[in-house]
């Protein structure tokens, strides 16, 4: 497992720890709303209350929702000692019950479960003319709702006849504070209570002042969100359709993504909530269940389609360099149960749980210990099946998912200036992530800090995983916060369900990671190339696509690992530059225990170079069946390269053999240099470095006898501690930003410094030194190194 695979769970666990510490102190739900009733308790309270009024709602369709009133919350903060305002939490729990015959009952409760209001809607009943106000009933109801405070109330309206019935009202007027007043109303009809409710009335003068404070931040956020989401949506749609002129396979990709999203959506409705239409906040009892289900699912299908479209738009413009981050997503759309998918899902969920700490961290940093964050509307507390709801995030989180699925590829494909691109992504990402949740309605700066932290966290995760992780990360994020909310509200069962859902997904993903299908990175990358039937592209693009196919084919031509030679250590690496290039290294086992080593470099780049490289590799393999006669091998390859035609393309090659000598303890390295960089020889006891430069012409220049005549074979006897380095000019001509070359001198210094290590160690030192020297400059050529070190006597 890669180191990063451990780092993510570790950071995730730290995040969960921080969340557990900060959430109970800083989330609005734990600080102010403090819900103490669960869904079933809320339903029970509503049922009991309705029974008092002679209505049995036990068998009715019910829905429980909750909402918070921003204005009331602001007033409570403004007048923290007002007894009327303190009787009302800014959160309300609403229980709706509907009978098949159209009668509806609505009960509002405080988060602790105290009844706030009751109302029954029944179009058939109307006030009868001869009815009288029932004084005793009114007093009883006042006490039921206002409790110990009922003595403070004075009657304001007595037995008024209305459409609903006989209405009476009581008011708690206070002289010390003008403008805030408690009000209780009860309406009876036919001796039955049809409506009763306790509420606070606040004068517009007070409301207006507290409302103004919030509006600036929220209005700005709404405007920014509309601009980003609408703009992004239009851009994605345009990109999707514009892509059709070049390829078609993104349609299928998008459709399968949408299908996956839709599957998640259907799963999330397994609790039956689709049938009640309750997630739209109202209960339509007169709508048949199947119609409600169709409505819900159609709405979901629409959002699922936009999710698919977003991914497809990103996919169609995805630069080749970004494909590795999409391979799990590609495998998902191919329906392949691949390990890579399991890895990304698991790490995404774990990281998401950890990232859930960030809003609170940002708030704590910016606003100090008194801050209160507000992430989700409290309705989620009363879902039918709390865990299932998380799957819906895969569909509804289209905005945040789109940031990595579409906007990132779009910036990569469209904005050529690196800093411009980074700026666009950072600004948009920060604003989007801050605005989507807006945890701090009062403080724009704190929201932006949260957005920036979240973006940084997501970016780190994305770098180590891929776009699937960026899709599921919000499931973890939301799940962790929901679990924390249930735990602080004492709803253990719901907490277990939510955590169980996360755990279940995690375990399933881990199992997939462990037992799934291994995928071949090259094959998946190839699957991202449009097939012939999918393309309608310009020649240039087709060429580029072919290049990358060639590049991958080429990389596979390199030996997987160097051979084991007794007494020696051997290491090799080829660091490809961006284009198709022509570096090659190979090892050849000659008959009789002689080993051959080769580093070759085809001039130029492109398909031509790749073909030459393949040709050279083939000819070298063919040579392994014959005697290790270096001159003969090089001459034969030269002839073939010349015959291949194109003199502008030539090959330089360093070809050596290592063989045991009958007589002595050492081994002999023989070497021809067909125009290639001279190999470095390090001599052990004294540490002197030399470059072996026997005469030799590049392969492919001339087929005449001049080639063979100018080809010398160098021969050196190697002793333990000696080091040979074969390399391509990509190493010595490796350039830094100020156009200096790495050069032979630096190479010599590195080898002298690292000579005591084994070949692998020396190779690593060389690569590191070259990399450090190059810095941020673009590699302009392949870089190949083969290191041979004689560690002990060859046996």
């Amino acid at each position, binding site marked *: 497992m890669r180191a990063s695979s451990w780092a993510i769970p570790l950071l995730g666990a730290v995040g969960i720890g921080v969340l557990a510490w900060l959430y109970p102190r800083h989330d609005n739900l734990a600080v102010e709303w403090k819900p103490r009733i669960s869904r079933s308790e809320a339903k029970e309270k509503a049922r009991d209350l309705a029974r008092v009024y002679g209505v049995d709602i036990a068998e009715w369709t019910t829905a429980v929702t909750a909402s918070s009133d921003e204005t009331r919350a602001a007033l409570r903060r403004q007048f923290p000692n007002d007894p009327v305002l303190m009787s009302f939490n800014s959160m309300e729990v609403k229980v709706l019950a509907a009978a098949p015959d159209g009668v509806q009952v609505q009960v509002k409760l405080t988060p602790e479960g105290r009844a706030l209001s009751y109302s029954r809607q029944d179009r058939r009943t109307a006030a009868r003319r001869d009815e009288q106000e029932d004084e005793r009933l009114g007093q009883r109801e006042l006490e039921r709702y206002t409790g110990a405070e009922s003595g403070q109330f004075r009657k304001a309206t007595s037995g008024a006849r209305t459409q609903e019935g006989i209405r009476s009202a009581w008011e708690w007027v206070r002289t010390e504070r003008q403008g805030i007043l408690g009000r209780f109303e009860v309406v009876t009809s036919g001796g039955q209570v049809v409506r009763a409710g306790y509420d606070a009335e606040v004068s517009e003068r007070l409301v207006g002042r507290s409302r103004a404070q919030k509006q600036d931040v929220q209005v700005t956020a709404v405007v920014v969100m509309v601009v980003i989401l609408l703009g992004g949506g239009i851009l994605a749609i345009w990109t999707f359709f514009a892509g059709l002129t070049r390829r078609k396979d993104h349609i299928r990709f998008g459709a399968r993504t949408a299908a996956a999203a839709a599957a998640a959506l259907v799963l999330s409705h397994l609790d039956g909530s689709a049938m009640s239409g309750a997630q739209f906040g109202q209960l339509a009892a007169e709508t048949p269940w199947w119609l409600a289900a169709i409505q819900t699912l159609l709405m979901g299908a629409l959002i699922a389609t936009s999710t698919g479209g977003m991914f497809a738009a990103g996919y169609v413009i995805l630069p080749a360099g970004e494909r590795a981050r999409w391979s799990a997503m590609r495998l998902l759309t191919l329906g392949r149960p691949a390990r890579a998918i399991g890895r990304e899902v698991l790490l995404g969920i774990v990281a998401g749980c950890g990232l859930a700490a960030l809003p609170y961290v940002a708030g704590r940093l910016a606003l100090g210990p008194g801050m209160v964050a507000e992430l989700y509307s409290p309705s989620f507390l009363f879902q039918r099946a709390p865990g299932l709801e998380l799957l819906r995030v895969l569909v509804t989180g289209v905005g945040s998912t789109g940031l990595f699925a579409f906007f990132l590829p779009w910036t990569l494909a469209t904005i050529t200036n690196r800093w411009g691109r980074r700026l666009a992504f950072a600004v948009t990402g920060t604003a989007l992530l801050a605005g989507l949740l807006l945890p701090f309605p009062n403080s724009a700066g704190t929201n932006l800090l949260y957005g920036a932290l979240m973006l940084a966290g997501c970016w780190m995760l994305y770098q180590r995983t891929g776009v699937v992780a960026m899709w599921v990360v919000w499931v973890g994020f939301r799940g962790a916060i929901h679990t924390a909310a249930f735990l602080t509200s004492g709803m253990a069962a719901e907490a277990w369900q939510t955590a169980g859902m996360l755990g279940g997904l995690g375990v399933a993903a881990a199992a997939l990671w462990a037992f799934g299908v291994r995928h071949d990175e090259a094959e998946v990358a190839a699957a991202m190339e449009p097939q012939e039937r999918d393309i309608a592209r310009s020649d240039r693009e087709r060429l580029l696509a072919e290049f990358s196919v060639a590049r991958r084919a080429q990389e596979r031509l390199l030996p997987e690992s160097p051979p084991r030679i007794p007494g020696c250590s051997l290491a090799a690496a080829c660091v490809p530059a961006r284009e198709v290039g022509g570096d090659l290294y190979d090892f050849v086992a000659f008959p009789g225990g002689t080993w051959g080593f080769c580093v070759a*470099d085809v*001039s*130029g*780049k492109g398909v031509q170079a790749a073909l030459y490289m393949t040709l050279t590799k083939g000819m070298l393999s063919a040579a392994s069946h014959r005697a290790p006669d270096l001159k003969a091998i090089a001459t034969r390859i030269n002839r073939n390269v010349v015959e291949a035609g*194109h*003199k*502008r*393309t*030539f090959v*330089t090659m360093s070809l050596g053999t290592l063989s045991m000598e009958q007589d002595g303890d050492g081994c002999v390295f023989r070497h021809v240099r*067909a*125009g*290639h*960089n*001279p190999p470095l020889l390090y001599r052990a006891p004294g540490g002197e470095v030399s470059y072996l*430069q026997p*005469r*030799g*012409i*590049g392969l*492919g*220049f*001339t087929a*005449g*006898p*001049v080639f063979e*005549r*100018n080809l010398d074979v160098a021969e050196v006897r190697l002793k333990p501690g000696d080091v040979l380095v074969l390399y391509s*000019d990509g190493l010595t001509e490796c350039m830094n930003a100020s156009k200096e070359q790495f050069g032979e001198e630096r190479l010599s210094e590195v080898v002298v410094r690292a000579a005591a290590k084994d070949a692998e160690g020396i190779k690593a030192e060389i690569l590191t030194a070259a990399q450090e020297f190059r810095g941020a400059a673009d590699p302009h050529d392949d870089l190949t190194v083969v290191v041979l070190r004689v560690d002990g006597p060859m046996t």
Partner: protein
Amino acid sequence: MATHFQIERRDEGELRLLALDGYLDAHTAPSFENAIEEEMRSGKIRLVVECSKLTYISSAGLGVFMSFIEEIREAGGDIKLAGIPPKVYQVFEVLGFPALFDIVETTEAAAAKFAEGGRRED
């Protein structure tokens, strides 16, 4: 990335002189290639490529020399290289160019080589 590369062409008695200046790599090689092609088309096949201002040559640049030499020699001409700075010469040397081309210090020396008669293809 635009790299500086210029070719100055002039007659030098019987010979045609191409003085290279700057950076000869994959980006600039085509202009060098065109220059040689033009000379050949106008029948000028006794070429001296003067390299004293050449600062860098990549494999693509080296390939240009190879792509015309055979044709020019068959027609009885040659390309001779003059005044290569030591750093650039290293590249020619590693590739084995000294075995394939006459490489001399000055254009005068190149002229003298032409006077000796066509290069013997050995």
